[in-house]
């Protein structure tokens, strides 16, 4: 109390005192964060120390610290390897395709469903559109493979109906990115639209009524009233999506891969897995993973900075 009244030095001191005093007073709050913090250090930050093996000639016997340094040798090897241009191209093309085609789908769906006047039908439609999200990656991949089978799949029966030859979709490297993206749209669009539904519930009803008075058409109302409400949400999600441009997850790609489509389906993360955990070339694989993360963080930061300047929306 006395410290608060006095000025200058003493007040500075009280800020430090304040922190300790706060910690002592609220030690229970701090204690509540411990389980999560212990997890954070053991499973998230401790592995980060292992990144140094990207610069080492790692051997299991010598361990992370004992293995000799090798500078950028692993990176040299990576950039000069036969697979590097292929995995870079595949990762980029699948990610960009997702960004351009899959990303706008939930926005369009939310705007369309928002125009439904029957509330019960709307509810039923939404419930059904979430269903694919609750099917596991493995099962979705299994369904894709079954449907696209040249001998027994329903898609090829449809193609034959038009008098064309059946196509071995899963055996053609060029088809892979389309299979990946289209199955992703089927699985993710309904779920992805939830966040936009939420944002659309914030549309000012009086604006819509005023637009009605002025004789605006439905399309005009969507473009000039509903869509602008979604813009901040769209931007934030877009930045996040940009940040994962090389962070294409391995789960789905790996499940859809087979030796015959590998030249179109091997991406950085699956390559990291195979070189590292299958071939046990740890240093090399870590270098590839680190390259991937650094690019991701750079793109994310760049997208965030651009959005901050242009649209005043940013993640941090």
């Amino acid at each position: 109390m006395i410290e608060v009244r006095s000025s200058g030095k003493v007040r500075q001191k009280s800020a430090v005192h304040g922190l300790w005093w706060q910690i002592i007073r609220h030690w229970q709050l701090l204690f509540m964060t411990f389980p999560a913090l212990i997890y954070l250090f053991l499973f998230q930050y401790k592995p980060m120390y292992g990144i140094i093996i990207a610069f080492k000639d790692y051997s299991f016997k010598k361990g992370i610290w004992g293995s000799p340094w090798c500078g950028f040798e692993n990176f040299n090897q990576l950039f000069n390897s036969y697979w590097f241009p292929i995995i870079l191209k595949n990762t980029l093309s699948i990610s960009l395709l997702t960004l351009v085609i899959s990303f706008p789908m939930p926005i369009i769906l939310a705007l369309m469903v928002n125009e439904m006047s029957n509330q019960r039908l709307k509810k039923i439609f939404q419930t059904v559109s979430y269903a694919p999200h609750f099917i596991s990656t493995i099962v979705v991949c299994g369904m894709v493979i079954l449907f696209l089978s040249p001998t027994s799949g329903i898609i090829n029966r449809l193609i034959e109906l038009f008098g064309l030859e059946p196509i071995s979709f899963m055996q053609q490297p060029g088809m892979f990115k389309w299979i990946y993206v289209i199955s992703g749209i089927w699985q993710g669009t309904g779920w992805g639209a939830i966040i936009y539904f939420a944002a659309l519930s914030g549309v000012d009803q009086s604006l819509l009524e005023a637009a009605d008075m002025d004789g605006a058409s439905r399309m005009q109302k969507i473009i000039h009233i509903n869509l602008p409400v979604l813009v901040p949400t769209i931007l934030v999600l877009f930045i996040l999506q940009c940040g994962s441009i090389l962070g294409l997850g391995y789960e789905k790609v790996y499940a859809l891969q087979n030796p015959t489509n590998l030249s179109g389906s091997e991406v950085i993360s699956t390559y990291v897995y195979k070189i590292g955990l299958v071939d046990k070339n740890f240093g090399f694989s870590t270098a590839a993973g680190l390259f991937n993360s650094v690019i991701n963080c750079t793109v994310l930061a760049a997208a965030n900075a651009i959005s901050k300047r242009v649209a005043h929306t940013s993640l941090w």
Partner: protein
Amino acid sequence: MKQKLKHLQGKDLIFVCINSFLLILIFCVTVYPLIFVISASVSDPAAVSTGEMVLLPVSPSLEAYQFVLSYQAIWTGYLNTIFYTFLGTLINLAATIPCAYALSRKDCPLKGLIMTLFMITMYFSGGLIPGYLNIVSMGLLNTRLVMLISGAVSAYNLIVARTFFANTIPWELHEAAFLDGCSDFRLLTRIVLPLSSPIIVVLILYYGVGHWNSYFNAMIYLQDRAKYPLQVFLREILTLGQFADTALATGDYSPEDMASLLRQVEKADMIKYAVIVVSTLPMMVIYPWLQKYFAKGVMIGSVKG
């Protein structure tokens, strides 16, 4: 209805028609694969592979299900998945909720620092190999424990929960409790938790679905088949069998060989369809009941990401 249509003039009428048509189309595209899988799992496999079965089952039989239900691996996987999902989600909640609550309090010491530490992990991680070596160094390789705690707190879920606590528990409630000499622990367990069932359901759903569907961690960290979750067995059955197809598409076979191979593939496909139904049914039955909660969860998350 008629009156409503009268209100719609020219352009709007066209808009409503196109919009309804597209929505019906989207509805069909979403539902058709699901119905197809169910029908194919009980139909005559030959009818499925010739395209004779389009929507409804043809000469239905439960043969495939008999096979699936007598297949031991499915049951092992199911039990393991239930175990991992149940206990894993419990651990997730125990770690996430207290931390999220503490960080939602404006008087929590060091909360900015702790928050930043969590945010960083959303964008940057050690990567696959350092993570793997870390698990090995802790002696967790090939233990059930690794499936339970290797993803104990998700930064995203933590933020969603924190936002919920910050926005729904009024500060006056805290002040009143402090005046009565209530400690922070009691406050959490006696006052805050009873008011927080929506966020608890959301967290159970998010974490639970994650546990139920994950296969990659199990594939990397587990070696004993007895510890495998369902998804790893599903992977063996559903996606690793692609080669019979490749062989059929490219191979050189005599007509008799071809016919018998085709029958085998057809039969295998029927079993695959049945496996999909058996493994996905629980989720399909449960999620519509929780719908209002997860819609809410996304909304909380979107208030401030």
